[in-house]
């Protein structure tokens, strides 16, 4: 059975249909690239899967549990973590405290003392060790994005949903980060990655799902999907990969 299975997930905001009938499944151990034009519903889907928005209808099964209608914190306890496209750190805490809180509440509950140790590990992993003591208002966008990542990892998820964590890196830096994501994957974590930088998506994904106007328009091997006419006209434009 798949790790995660979406069926007919719908979500509208007033007149805007952000998701209409999304069907998608994620297998354990996969890295799935989720791409699509701006406003196609990727972040909305992540919000629905992580319990931030209630879906209007549909079904989301995660290891056999129906997630719809569950609170975000319950979903986190099941083992789904996510990052925010626009970073949202805890503003009065240091980087370390940000990660520590997340470790305390993640899939398993930990004490404050344990959390401090674990936080340092994850900061190290994401290359933020040097700014562990910094208040978050001293960090730049990139550091904030990696902090998002560290925080999500600290919940010890089974499935992690990454919303544009690598946007804003230059090509050389991307190499290093791709390595890091692979390392996350090596720890047995299933990954859904949303990214507009095609070299990232192509080099990481085992499978790519393309959303357009809230619908899945393609799903398959990276090469196949990227040469799909619909995908090219909706998303890639003249620039084929």
């Amino acid at each position: 059975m798949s790790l995660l299975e979406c069926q007919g997930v719908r979500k509208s905001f007033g007149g805007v249909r952000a998701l209409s009938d999304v069907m998608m499944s994620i297998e354990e151990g996969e890295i799935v690239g989720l791409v699509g034009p701006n406003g196609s519903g990727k972040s909305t889907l992540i919000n629905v899967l992580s319990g931030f928005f209630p879906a209007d209808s549909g079904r989301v099964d995660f290891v056999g549990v129906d997630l719809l209608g569950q609170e975000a914190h319950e979903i986190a306890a099941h083992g789904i973590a996510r990052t925010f496209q626009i970073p949202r750190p805890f503003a009065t805490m240091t980087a370390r405290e940000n990660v520590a809180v997340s470790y305390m509440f993640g899939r398993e509950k930990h004490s404050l003392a344990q959390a401090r140790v674990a936080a340092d590990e994850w900061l190290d992993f994401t290359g933020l060790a040097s700014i562990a003591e910094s208040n978050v208002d001293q960090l730049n966008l990139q550091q904030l994005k990696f902090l998002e990542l560290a925080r999500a990892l600290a919940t010890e998820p089974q499935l992690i949903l990454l919303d544009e964590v690598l946007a804003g890196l230059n090509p050389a830096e991307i190499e290093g980060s791709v390595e890091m994501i692979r390392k996350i994957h090596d720890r047995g974590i299933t990954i859904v990655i949303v990214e507009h930088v095609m070299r990232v998506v192509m080099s990481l994904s085992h499978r790519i799902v393309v959303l357009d106007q809230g619908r899945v328009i393609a799903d398959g091997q990276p090469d196949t999907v990227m040469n799909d006419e619909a995908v090219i006209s909706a998303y890639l434009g003249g620039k084929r990969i």
Partner: protein
Amino acid sequence: MLEIRDLTTGYGRAQVLWDVTASVADGEIVTLLGPNGAGKTTLVNALSGILRPWSGQVLLNDIDLTATRPHLISQSGIAVVPEGRRIFPDMTVTDNLLIGAYNKRARPHHEGNVERIYEIFPRLSERKRQLAGSMSGGEQQMLAIGRALMAEPSLLLLDEPSLGLAPIIVENIFEVLKQLNQEGLSILLVEQNAVEALNLAGRGYVLEEGRIVGEGSSGELLADERLRKAYLGL
């Protein structure tokens, strides 16, 4: 048109930029390269009035902007697409665009300009009254670009405009920039997609740890072995 002389600035007591000297000529597109945390955003913000310079000079058409009160900078012709968009989340799309036209020069033409922005970004015109904060990341980026164009700048500062945009939109935006440039707009572009940026620009600077460490035509920079390794991932 833009002359930066020995500019230093930073946050609180932490200095980020050290004696930066650079220029953008009339009608030119100049790109600014540099690793993460080098100070590119800091420079852009110091030029646009978001951040105050500590010392040094910024001259726009020989007018000293460091002596100008920050809110008058946009009047003198600079507009910015800031890093992280910094749209006004509680305001509608239209109102965000109108703020772009706040300065006295652009205000009289705001009606026509709004229509033009809507043509460039049809998605924005579908969502005129949506609160900007609820737009998708990419939509917000379009809005930030639209807002800057509303100001009718003579010099446009773009801090990673392609961030979070679908390839098809990026292509579109680069098209638009090229066209505006041909109409006389000068551009200072910070962009991670360096190859793309250098192709568009005529010239570039390399900023590292707050200092300008290199400068040259696009061709020269693209050919530089060290740069290719460090920034272009080639």
